[in-house]
């Protein structure tokens, strides 16, 4: 089938302002949007610039806005988005070129929540024990691939880039609720600050955007609740 792609183009090296590139490509209905983007890049216009790697929704490289919604280009099939497809970079991060954004502000927020297990007690010779239920408690948030689809779908993040954003809260959740971790309170303190979890207005864009089906808004709510239980 023939489809029309409208892609947001911008090379700060040469362009004064962004423009729309329009392309027609022949694809299968079961092709990914990424396949269509590749077709443009490989056979029509090699200057089209995007990030991608695994092409099956695990590496998190190719979060873009497809018809106005944040998606991984490799996890959306053509048949599910129609014959006219608009592709733009995710919002709220500086555009480096075309669909490529500067991920540094996003990664800085991620790093700010101490996203690593903290436990200074000497470990046993074998594994630390954890029950099936304790492990299940934070299962959902271990699925995060740091693609930034959630954070860059969030109106609170668009208006205030200092907001840590849903992805960082998801990462904090993964440790706060891990029975082996000992720094939950420190993370809650970080997220209780003015740029933290209370910036969330429960708009649910993040949950809709997550390509890993993480219940992002629920995870944020659980962190908020935990703060209240801790008197923060």
């Amino acid at each position, binding site marked *: 089938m023939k489809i029309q792609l409208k892609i947001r183009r911008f090379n700060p090296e040469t362009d004064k302002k962004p423009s729309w590139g329009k392309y027609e490509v022949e694809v299968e209905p079961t092709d990914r949007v990424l396949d269509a983007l590749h077709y443009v890049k490989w056979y029509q216009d090699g200057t089209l610039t995007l990030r991608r790697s695994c092409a099956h929704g695990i590496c998190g490289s190719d979060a873009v806005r497809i018809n106005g919604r944040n998606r991984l280009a490799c996890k959306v099939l053509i048949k599910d988005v129609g014959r006219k497809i608009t592709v733009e970079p995710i919002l709220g991060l500086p555009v480096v070129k075309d669909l490529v954004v500067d991920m540094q502000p996003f990664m800085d927020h991620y790093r700010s929540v101490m996203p690593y297990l*903290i436990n200074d007690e000497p470990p046993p010779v074998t594994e630390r024990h954890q029950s099936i239920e304790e492990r299940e408690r934070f299962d959902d948030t271990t699925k995060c691939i740091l693609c930034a689809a959630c954070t860059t779908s969030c109106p609170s993040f668009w208006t205030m880039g200092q907001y840590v954003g849903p992805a960082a809260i998801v990462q904090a959740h993964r440790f706060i609720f891990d029975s082996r971790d000992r720094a939950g309170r420190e993370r809650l303190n970080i997220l209780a600050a003015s740029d933290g979890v209370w910036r969330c207005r429960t708009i649910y864009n993040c949950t809709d955007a997550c390509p890993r089906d993480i219940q992002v808004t629920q995870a944020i709510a659980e962190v908020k609740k935990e703060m209240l239980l801790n008197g923060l």
Partner: protein
Amino acid sequence: MYHKYDAIIVGAGGAGLMAALYASRGVKTAVLSKLYPTRSHTGTAQGGVGAALGNHEEDNPEWHTFDTIKGSDYLADQDAAKVMCYEAVDVVYELEHMGLPFNRTEEGRIAQRPFGGHTNNVTKKPVRRACYAADRTGHMILQTLYQQCIQHNVTFFDEFHVLDLIIEDGVTRGVVAVEIATGELHVFHAKAVLFATGGWGKVWRVTSNAHTLTGDGPAIALRRGIPLEDMEFFQFHPTGIYKMGILITEGVRGEGGVLVNSEGERFMDRYAPTIKDLASRDVVSRAIYLEVRDGRGIDGKDYVHLDVRPETVNRYFERDGIKNPDGTPRRITAADIEAKLPDIADFTRTYLGVDPTLQPMPVQPTAHYAMGGIPTDIWARVVADDKNTVLPGFYAAGEVACVSVHGANRLGTNSLLDIIVFGKRAGIDMVRYCQESDFLPLPKEPEAFTREQWEALLSRQNGRERAADIRREMQNAMMDYVGVFREEAGMKQAVEILEDLKERYRHIALDDAGKRYNTDVLEAWELGALLDTAEVTAVAALERSESRGGHYREDHPKRDDENWLKHSLVWAKDGTIELDYKPVTITDYQPKERVY
């Protein structure tokens, strides 16, 4: 721009990050990756990491070692396989201590599942050895190691693509890299350099590998006069999603899933009567091809069904008397599938519209893993000739390396194990080496050679060839002639096609001449690496006139230990390809015929 670090690590998958954690404890270390670290391909590994913890049933590292060697079709170096399988237990505990969220047993220990080729050596039955975190074990390893690197302030240069290795007078001096965002070339002066650049599945048309797995590391090694080992051995995983190649973990069969042909027959009963669908990957991939060839592919096409529907699985559990470790009959439910294989269910729903609890999945073999690579010893030090002479300061670990622990065929779960064991060993030995060595001066303008090539490529606006066409033709030739089944005439044809494609590569045109984030030139550069890697693979495969593990010759269907129980080494200096061989290290296990 000029930088100076004791140790440079190229690649930020499991091997690179594990090495970085250990190297950065002792010496000034930086990690260069062409991707953001968490995009690395380790993250796509699914089923588990092998270690004989024995959390469900009796197991021990000796059995793991034997299974690995048998799986390798006796081409693995037995001292190396032993190191890996014995260190597996502690290194898996180490990952757990770092925070890796493994699934758990009822007792709160690390959960384990059966995997292809891993057996109880007494009963010969499958043993639960794969330590898993749902079906995203690689994702959890990658995330956990990256988290640890953040905690320990490891220095990263994200989206720096390494283009050259600097060696002078036989000693490693650093690397040259391009900063993708700006197009600027950087020189990294170093005492030790580790290549942990992963594999090169993009040489083939149907592959489980990421677009970025383009053989960058081996191509640089070849250009620097370093040989590659056992390049003819590349694993085709039996169960890739039909046409797309996306991996469906062996864990599906570990949970009881079976392969079925167009007649509804569980055909692995015939090919591997003892462990059936959990035979090693080369055996299962060949079985699928033979079923297809004999007209038993689904709808007459080149795929079969992988069936994990509870009614199918439970029927075979009952037929075969499969029991849980506590002696009760083993059974699964749809909920178990959703809980233990959530990503697989997501993939098949997304890409095929198939619900694996209700419908079988269409699968075919997919190019998956390089057993060969840059030759190293058991400390990840690169050994650059048939006498295993160490090239001072150069290291390789993970898929890009050939220790050799996988020989002619890798067992599932042993790749995640390989990266953590040998990544760790690389980090430890780089510290030792850096502490014992001084910085040696860089040659004058160490980036001049690279700059010349890079700028020549960048300025090619008037060529007549498109990189995408050449890449596709290479992938087709390799798939058709240097795939699961191989024979002399086809491989000769592949070598000719590759020579022709390399000539055409000199005439490709680029659309993008800019410096900023130029992926047009990067992809063209990567294609150069792919062509170099493909060519030595085809030549090494053509030369080996026997069948062993992943290398199956229709014109030489038997293993030939008398002539071929040896590792190949291939050089490609100044455009001429040369082959040589070195012996396999055999310690405890004499080669026997392989039966599953």
